[in-house]
């Protein structure tokens, strides 16, 4: 059925507000990031100097701080992928197998994820504080006074401490998704395997893991995208310090923009970072498909 022009027009009116908002606040900035990345510009003056790919070249070859920040983000992400998700899987598996009233755990474990990064950072700031922090207080009262330190200010522990806070805040996400995945597995599969005399570990490896591959991939992608772009938690705890010890790409971009007024350069950084993130998720998806086929 061919629609009249009038119908097409009134139909499109429904989508007009969304299209307008989207064009102004998503499409235009998207284009602008790419455009600005080719310029040297402080964001204020009218003088914009076209520099081609010089910003990109400088970031990739000469900007040590950028690479440190990227490495830090990778490091936190690696810990989140392994420690945090392993913990989430272990807890999900325990709740799925053993406990009937699993809902209460589901509710409690998802409390940290609903809190803001700022609040979480400020609370943990105080737990990790060097002079009167709760952790040091607990260590001292257990006779481990020699272990005390300013956890977030000591270059040796700052990154681990931030990663710990991040994992505390994030494991509930993985837990909930993994648990839902586990509960989708038909119980009969487990029962028939057990009748055949398969042990716990065998059942886990031969039935649970293969069926969970798509869920693992999803959780991994969410973990990578969420952790690599960590910002609020850093700002409210270390601010990137001490030195560059907890700098991440997002804090670098904000510092370049607000601190040194190098907007074009920050945009180039954003393009590089965005492409790397996209590559990560594509690789992850490929890997998932490949594993799924086996």
């Amino acid at each position, binding site marked *: 059925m061919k629609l009249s022009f009038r119908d097409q027009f009134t139909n499109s009116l429904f989508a007009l507000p969304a*299209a307008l908002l989207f064009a102004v606040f998503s499409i*235009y900035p998207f284009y602008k990031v790419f455009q600005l990345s080719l310029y040297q510009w402080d964001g204020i003056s009218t003088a914009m100097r076209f520099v081609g790919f010089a910003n990109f070249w400088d970031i990739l070859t000469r900007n040590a701080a950028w690479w440190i920040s990227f490495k830090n983000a990778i490091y936190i992400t690696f810990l989140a992928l392994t420690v945090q998700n392993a913990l989430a899987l272990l807890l999900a598996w325990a709740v799925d197998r053993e406990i009937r009233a699993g809902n209460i755990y589901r*509710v409690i474990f998802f409390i940290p994820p609903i809190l803001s990064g700022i609040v979480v950072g400020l609370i943990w700031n105080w737990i990790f504080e060097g002079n009167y922090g709760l952790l040091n207080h607990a260590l001292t009262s257990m006779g481990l006074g020699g272990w005390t330190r300013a956890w977030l200010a000591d270059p040796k522990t700052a990154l681990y401490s931030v990663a710990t806070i991040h994992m505390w805040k994030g494991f509930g996400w993985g837990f909930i998704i993994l648990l839902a995945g586990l509960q989708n597995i038909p119980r009969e599969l487990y029962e028939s395997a057990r009748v055949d005399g398969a042990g716990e570990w065998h059942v886990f490896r031969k039935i649970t893991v293969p069926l969970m591959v798509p869920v693992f991939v999803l959780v991994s992608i969410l973990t990578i995208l969420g952790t690599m772009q960590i910002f609020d938690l850093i700002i409210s705890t270390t601010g990137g310090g001490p030195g560059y010890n907890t700098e991440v790409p997002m804090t670098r971009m904000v510092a370049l923009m607000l601190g040194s007024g190098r907007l074009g350069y920050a945009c180039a950084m954003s393009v590089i970072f965005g492409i790397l993130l996209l590559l990560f998720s594509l690789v992850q998806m490929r890997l998932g498909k490949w594993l799924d086929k086996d």
Partner: protein
Amino acid sequence: MDVARLKRVLSKSSRSTLVHGVLILVSISCVFPLVWMFVSALKTQETIFSNMSLIPASPHWENFALAWTKGKFGIFFFNSLFYTFCTVVGVLLISSLAAYASSRLPFPGRKILFMLLLATMMIPVPGAFIALYVLLVKLNLVNTRLGYILPQINGQLALGVFLLKTFFDKLPRELEDAARVDGCNKLQVYYHVALPLAKPAIAVLAIFTTLAVWNEYLLAMLVLSDRNLMPLQRGLMVFQGAHITQYPLLMAGMTISVIPIVVIYIIMQRHIISGITAGALKM
């Protein structure tokens, strides 16, 4: 009862005790920092570092009043409430209209628009905030409420359209046809028939938008420098960055910022958790 069976029962029960023990320990770790924050809000600047008790002997409830007035958290709170309300209303209205159109009302460019929206959910542009800031400067929207609300409405559009379109697609068309026969125009059909049916999806969208806006920080940091316009997250950072941080008041301010979100969560947890799992497993 023979020995082997007894052994099995014992080992099973001890294992389940261990499992419960771990789960309870993790649960405590999730809740304790919040309890600590709340308790600390009831101490004084002098005792807060030395008094490690969980139940303070003389709780200073006035800290909450002080944070509310002197700490300006009352203003931050109402700002957060205002931003959240406006964004939720905006997102629900604009994305439901667009979702309804992309499900039911064909027009040229409909598919492209929908695909572009989806693409923004997939393609990360971590530095979009830079260009967004430049844009807001151009539009004279820096340090205005509108400049903080509009980008956030846009930020939730993709999710909203996606969520509601999937929902509308599954609705049977008979009811809408009947309404049309009765003489309703498109807008009336949408408003009186489709929208009320989409309540479950709308609830999920409203909750996730609320969480996102209430917890937002980066945009607030870039756009708002006037203290009277700041939402809670930005207010907290400004307060803790002050020359001498009043820790009990900071903790009181944090508690004020957390209470609404925890209350909403406890009331709506079923929707939140099922929303996440349904969304996740569909992908």
